[in-house]
């Protein structure tokens, strides 16, 4: 995958300054394998959202759209209601911790159109806030609670962000890379 502005490397958009002393092993990039439906979807989305600041990309066999966090609910609602897209099924909401930023991934699928897409939004690591999409898909409720539990992402406007997987009073966000694990001794 060439590292063009359209295809940012998933490891981190702000290019890290290369450290000349340590020799990093050369990392291969996953190949793009977008099928015809994906190519068509990609052109539909870039046409429809030409007024928005969207960054189109490809993740192996999936079209990816990177948007600003505050535009997430509006764009998601359009994705769902636009007849040519009809993304009625939110497959999952996943948070990935890239240390310098958090990335929220919304994997969408359309039952009537049978195509798939992933929406990405980058959040700052120190105060990750993104508006909720529970108003668009009700299934987002628990996914967002989980993201709040494990990564501390504040899904603004969510009806109830009480702990879901963790117990009440748990401190910290164990999904983050900074959260220690494997720090116990074998016994």
């Amino acid at each position, binding site marked *: 995958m060439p590292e063009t502005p359209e295809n940012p490397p998933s490891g981190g958009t702000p290019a890290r300054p290369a450290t000349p002393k340590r020799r990093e092993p050369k*990392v291969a990039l996953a190949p793009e394998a977008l099928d015809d439906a994906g190519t068509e979807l990609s052109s539909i989305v870039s046409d429809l959202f030409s007024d928005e600041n969207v960054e189109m990309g490809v993740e192996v066999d999936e079209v990816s759209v990177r948007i600003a966090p505050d535009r997430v609910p509006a764009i998601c609602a359009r994705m769902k209601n636009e007849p040519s897209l009809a993304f009625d099924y939110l497959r999952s909401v996943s948070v990935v911790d890239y240390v310098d930023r958090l990335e929220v991934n919304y994997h969408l699928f359309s039952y009537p159109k049978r195509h798939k897409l992933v929406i990405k939004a980058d959040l700052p690591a120190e105060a990750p806030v993104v508006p909720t999409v529970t108003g668009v898909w009700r299934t987002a409720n628990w996914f967002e609670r989980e993201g709040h539990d494990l990564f501390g992402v504040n899904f603004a406007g969510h009806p109830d962000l009480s*702990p879901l997987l963790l117990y009440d009073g748990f401190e910290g966000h164990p999904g983050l890379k900074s959260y220690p694990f*494997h720090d116990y001794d074998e016994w």
Partner: protein
Amino acid sequence: MKVTQTTRAADSSVDMMINMGPQHPSTHGVFRLVLQLEGERIVHAEPHIGYLHRGSEKLCEGESYAQVITLFDRMDYVANLNSELAFCMAVEKLMGIEVPDRAWYIRTILCELNRVASHMLFYGVFGMDAGAMTPILYGFREREKIQSLFESVTGARMMHNYFRIGGVKEELPTDFPARLASIVEELKRAIEECDQLLTGNEAFLARTRGISPLSAEDAVDFGVTGPILRSTGQIEDVRVSEPYGIYDRFDFGIPVGSTGDCWDRYYIRIEEMRQSLLIIEQAASQMEAGDIQAKMRRIARPPKGEVYVRSETPRGDLGVFLVSDGGPKPYRVKVRTPSFSNLQAIQHMLRGAYVADAVVVLGSLDIILGEVDR
């Protein structure tokens, strides 16, 4: 049901709060449901999960790709092989590995057997939830046969750790085809027997028919998948809509319901067992000798990138979102488990239902808490 707390809330219309679980036999694990009643009607149900949260996703980040498979065994502990397959497929897709045909046939046969075993467990437990004591004996008897076959193949009755990235661990035992053929025949008879034992039973029908129907729109909006989505009339099965592996080589049907009530959810699983046996028979007759493992380096190091794969487990759409930074361990694994989303819809399904039906509705969802909490 144990009444642990009787409060008269400030809102006088709420008569009683009933706490069900986390230690309750019909919650299928450790799951807590707080019901607010008005008379015998449920006005609000609040599910509490997380009692079995082991941080599997985080643990995946500390293991090599081959070791992660063991963690997937422990997510859906009733359909272990189906979970293993989803992770293996994700790594294979990222690395672009072509899995040999024979390995795919072995995987498919075992996964479909696992589906039958899982549905047999559902059959027994759901019967018990609805007040029938006998089905669980029949269901477990059949499941035991499949598990002993698994034991001869993988060495373990559960937690098989048999699938590998790019293939399977080892060749099938020599008596496998004969044992498979006899088990398929026995299962065919057993499914008919089970069907006759419970499906048309009048008491069972009274407990399940028309109970908390789910509409197709609500099911899709709640991200409900698998048999529960199909019971609402939506024709959707990942094995057909996004075929993976060799599923496009088989003729089989997708059973769909019409009303989305508890009985539909039950009967779809009976019908799915029949379809799974059809797949197994076709796969067994098409299978040829060959490699069982793709040529690849011993230690998997997928290229940098991310991939999302779906697969159809007995409970629904299992998605694995795998992010690789090019290293020997996954950077992030997110598992979208079907039970998690299916269980979320219970709040909606129980609103307005009778308290006596709560156990039946929960049973009809066929949740596995290991998968919900991860």
